[in-house]
């Protein structure tokens, strides 16, 4: 099983680094391979909404920088993890610059899902999504926004399963470990 971790935390964020370490250990214990992209240090231009990845080079972003590494890695994975400090309830700018460059993974054409319009899938299979948000302190409102965002991303990326995990800064290692193990177990069942 392959996991891609898109890390949108800042370099020097010790707690996030610790949580990422725990996540990788839990994945390894479950025999999941993991590859991590530390987005803050990568040269990724912001998506300009040109739709070149839909009409000019179908499925490939027209910007030739580190951002081009993300789409093939994500679509080849069984699980993609969006990891970031919870920022205004959502993702950090560093994570979002990577995510915005993934729209080539879906088709420009439309379909209806549960009465809403979405884009059709481009590929036959997509990875499950796990959103991991590190919160400065537990906060119900921002947690609900974060969970909604992960659920909306899963819908638009045609993911077979998804989960949103909120980790307050300072949470103990054992609790974090248990959270990850429970989510992985659940997602594995939905593959």
């Amino acid at each position, binding site marked *: 099983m392959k996991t891609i971790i898109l890390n949108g935390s800042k370099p020097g964020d010790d707690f996030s680094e610790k949580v990422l370490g725990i996540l990788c250990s839990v994945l390894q214990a479950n025999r999941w391979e993991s590859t991590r992209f530390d987005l803050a240090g990568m040269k990724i231009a*912001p*998506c*300009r*909404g*040109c*739709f070149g990845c*839909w*009409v*000019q*080079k*179908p*499925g*490939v972003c027209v910007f030739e920088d580190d951002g081009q590494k993300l*789409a*093939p890695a994500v*679509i*080849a994975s*069984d699980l993609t993890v969006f990891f970031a400090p919870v*920022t*205004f*309830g*959502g*993702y*950090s*700018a560093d994570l*979002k*610059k990577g*995510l*915005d460059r*993934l*729209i080539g993974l879906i*088709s*420009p*054409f*439309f379909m209806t899902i549960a009465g*809403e*319009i*979405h884009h059709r899938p*481009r*590929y*036959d*299979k*997509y*990875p499950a999504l796990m959103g991991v948000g590190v919160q400065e302190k537990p906060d119900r*409102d*921002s947690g609900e*926004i974060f969970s*909604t*965002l992960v659920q*909306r*991303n899963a819908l*638009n990326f045609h993911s077979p399963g998804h989960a949103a995990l909120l980790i307050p800064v300072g949470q103990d290692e054992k609790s974090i470990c248990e959270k990850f193990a429970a989510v992985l177990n659940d997602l594995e069942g939905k593959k």
Partner: protein
Amino acid sequence: MMRRKKALLLVGSPKSSGSTSEALGGYLLNRLIEMGFSGTKSILRRAVRDRKRIDCMLASVNNAEVIILACPTYVDSLPAPVLRALEEIVAFRRTHEGHGQPRFLAVANCGFPESLHNMVSLACCRRFAGEAGMIWAGGLSLGGGEALNGASLQNRKGLARNVIRALDLTATALERNESVPEGAEKLMARPLVPRWLYLWIGTRGWKAQARRFGTAGRLGERPWRDRSGETT
């Protein structure tokens, strides 16, 4: 002489020109200027490029009494350059004293016909206002923004009539130091065109662009090895 209130438009579209966000925000800013506000504009994709420009944007934010963010929804939430700008604003206001408490409102638009796709973007804007110590004045949500295609609203009068009414109501409310009225929210959320027509035009539009790039018939290509192991 009465002091003029200051309004700032933050344009959050990452597009280089002709964005629907700029058309929406620009219309609202112009209405406020007609009502006696002074108005300035900051293009966020440029503003976050380097420290000097960020500082310039922060100074504009610090001077404003009304701040309008007009932006698209990208992948279910705010585009990366907008988040970068908002992160910078919060970091600055947490570490500097003496800033005011402006009213902050957001006008979000998305490419899907339903306006509900903007819900996370607007929720993030509301959270931002709280964390930045601003007054959340509400949000307007437009679906099918591509139909306006970045044209000025005056040039899209029939199509944009509900949008114009929503922004007029909002300008009047802001002038009275009030929040976005519920009536404006409802008008903005109304579909610009019937859903079937939007989808029909959208599909034709993709095919027309593909012909221009010589990719007609290739829009469904799968350039990366599929997870099933097949190369397509």
